[in-house]
């Protein structure tokens, strides 16, 4: 995946971390101090107030292209979504569907060049993140927007203790004393359910198991009480039992801290469990979006339906044969002019090759980008 390597090449920060700034910078609102607590609440509207006005976080027509040696890849094409405080948005799609690039574009984590943000708006509390300068962005990353990366094995620096990595931003940006930052790091580890945090804070990442490392990553992302937490496949590298622990933990923390969570995954079963609303991506586009129950009960896009049909289930009746989606997702070397799924679609007609389907509303909060959305109730439920 190009973004990871490219991001680290650019990184001149003295602490070699693949995503400079994230989870490390500026931890001003300290949860413990009441005056700062109220400040952070001003910045982060509460759930009650938000629904009446504009959403907490809004993405409009985001366009990201990647310039590669073999041409320009249109990785994100006119992606729009919004999320409110206390809500969980699940983002699903196959590898290469643009999920991660979208998320990293939101806080401009991708090296530019080769990545170019062609257009769109990313509004957090009315402020367009794409217009901010690098300094303001560093202030924002990790403070208002937390990020949990997929692979806990490679996202932590192996040569520093976990405590150091948690403390470094607290000291650097808040001017906290070593002791104060240390105490805060211990608190954060306790918050994410790491047993014996006072001892483990001085251990190195390799002394932690995969699930524990992911908890450390979550602790870092939460250190500054972000309004939005972006979790990019946080459980993909973990075992099912550990995945269950992390899901329960995130659910608990969300109800405690009230942040908005964007949970990126390719596992539809995970999304079904945690999300309030689901965004289905294909070829860098949002092809379907809706409340989780409506989307699973009545997936309207043929791709969503096919994706659901490929998943074997541990409960319920056993299927004889899995249905596969033949073919591969396309790599878009130019902005899509027609339906990107039509080559693999069983319902494709002439119009699909001529005209790009736009997102059209179906029912309350449910929309689909398909010329011929499927109306009948899915057979898999």
């Amino acid at each position, binding site marked *: 995946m190009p973004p990871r390597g490219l991001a680290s090449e650019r990184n001149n920060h003295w602490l070699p971390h693949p995503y400079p700034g994230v989870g490390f910078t500026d931890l001003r609102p300290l949860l413990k101090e009441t005056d700062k607590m109220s400040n952070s609440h001003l910045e982060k509207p509460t759930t009650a107030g938000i629904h009446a006005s504009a959403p907490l976080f809004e993405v409009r027509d985001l366009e990201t292209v990647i310039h590669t040696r073999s041409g320009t890849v249109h990785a994100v094409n006119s992606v729009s979504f919004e999320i409110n405080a206390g809500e969980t948005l699940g983002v699903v799609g*196959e*590898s290469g569907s643009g999920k991660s690039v979208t998320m990293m574009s939101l806080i401009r984590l991708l090296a530019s060049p080769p990545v170019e943000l062609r257009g769109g708006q990313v509004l957090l509390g009315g402020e367009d993140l794409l217009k901010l300068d690098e300094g303001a962005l560093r202030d924002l990353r990790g403070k208002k927007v937390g990020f949990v990366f997929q692979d806990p094995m490679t996202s932590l620096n192996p040569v520093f203790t976990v405590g150091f990595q948690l403390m470094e931003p607290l000291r650097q940006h808040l001017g906290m004393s070593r002791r104060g930052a240390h105490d805060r790091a211990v608190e954060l580890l306790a918050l994410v359910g790491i*047993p014996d945090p006072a001892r483990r804070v001085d251990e190195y990442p390799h002394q932690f*198991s*995969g*699930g*524990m490392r992911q908890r450390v990553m979550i602790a870092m992302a939460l250190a500054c009480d972000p309004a939005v937490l972006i979790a990019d496949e946080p459980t993909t590298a973990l*075992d*099912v*039992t*550990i*995945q*269950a*622990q992390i*899901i*329960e933990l995130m659910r608990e923390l969300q109800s405690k801290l009230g942040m908005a969570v964007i949970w990126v995954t*390719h*596992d*539809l*079963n*995970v999304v*079904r*469990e945690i999300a309030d609303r689901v965004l289905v991506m294909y070829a860098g586009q949002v092809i379907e979006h809706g409340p989780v*129950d409506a989307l699973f009960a009545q997936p309207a896009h043929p791709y969503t339906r*096919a*994706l659901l049909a*490929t*998943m*074997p*289930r*541990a*409960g*319920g009746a*056993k*299927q004889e*044969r*899995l*249905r*596969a*989606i*033949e073919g*591969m997702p396309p790599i878009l070397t130019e902005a899509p002019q027609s339906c990107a799924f039509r080559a693999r679609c069983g319902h494709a007609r002439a119009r699909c090759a001529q005209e790009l389907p736009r997102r059209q509303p179906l029912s309350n909060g449910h929309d689909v980008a398909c010329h011929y959305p499927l109306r009948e109730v899915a057979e898999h439920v």
Partner: protein
Amino acid sequence: MSEPLFEIRDLKLHFPIYGGLLRHQIGSVKAVDGVSFDIFKGETLGLVGESGCGKSSCGRGLLRLSEPSSGEVVFDGRQVTALSHKEMRAIRTRMQMVFQDPQASLNPRMTVSEIISEPLNEHANLKRRALIARVCELMDAVGLNRAFLNRYPSSFSGGQRQRIGIARALALNPDFIVCDEPIAALDVSIQAQVVNLLKDLQEQFSLTYLFISHDLSMVRHIADRVAVMYLGKIVELADTELLYQRPSHPYSKALLSAVPGAVASRRADAPREVLKGDLPSPANPPKGCNFCTRCPHVMDICRTTEPELKAVAPGQYSACHLND
């Protein structure tokens, strides 16, 4: 059920740990610690468990890719563990393996035809024309385009690479294939393609599979029977539907309830059983029952006595003191 193809009795794989000033052995990782089971002809036995529970070591032990420390492996009436190196080489043609990571298990400097024909060169002694014909036949069988014969693995997608790995495993007409997490590295839509392919090939070539996976929903789909491993031991062995409908061992229950989507729409009803903590170290397993440190139903006897794998129902075996 037909006759057993594999009979495994008290198989152990212990890997030594060296340390100290003279690098002498200071302990051992008990990756597989006394497992016994049969694999019947034509069936798919699923082997599930968390990472580090010894599933892959167990699969490798069967093929003697890792040398077992003790125990017996009988393959089709022959004691595999007692065979000489030369005899082993001959019998390996009948048992093959599909590896987890298609990226790492294919040599990037060999073309597809070289990769698939390598076992044939070693064991079959075919003329060039016959060799190419056989490679093409295998590529057809796994659904790869013959035109890609001289391409390198780098020009294939993950799913296609796994098909190359499968074609290589099929080259010598084996009876038995260990599928070591063959779909773990693939996307969901591609996983379904590969699993369907494995099922078709099983029917076509009457293969027996040991299907190692941590994906319980996929194992349910492909396996006839499932063995659940925990810390080097089999805690439950049952017919697939029995295991998924009413698991007997507390670990199997926890594992199944951890699968997302297993309990539909969980928000309202009771929370699932979430296991606390991680897998203990296999170098220093707990006394008594291996699962006693995480078991929600732990009793005094569990900390002292190791439970045996016993029949709890026809076709279902479980190793737990709760059954007594």
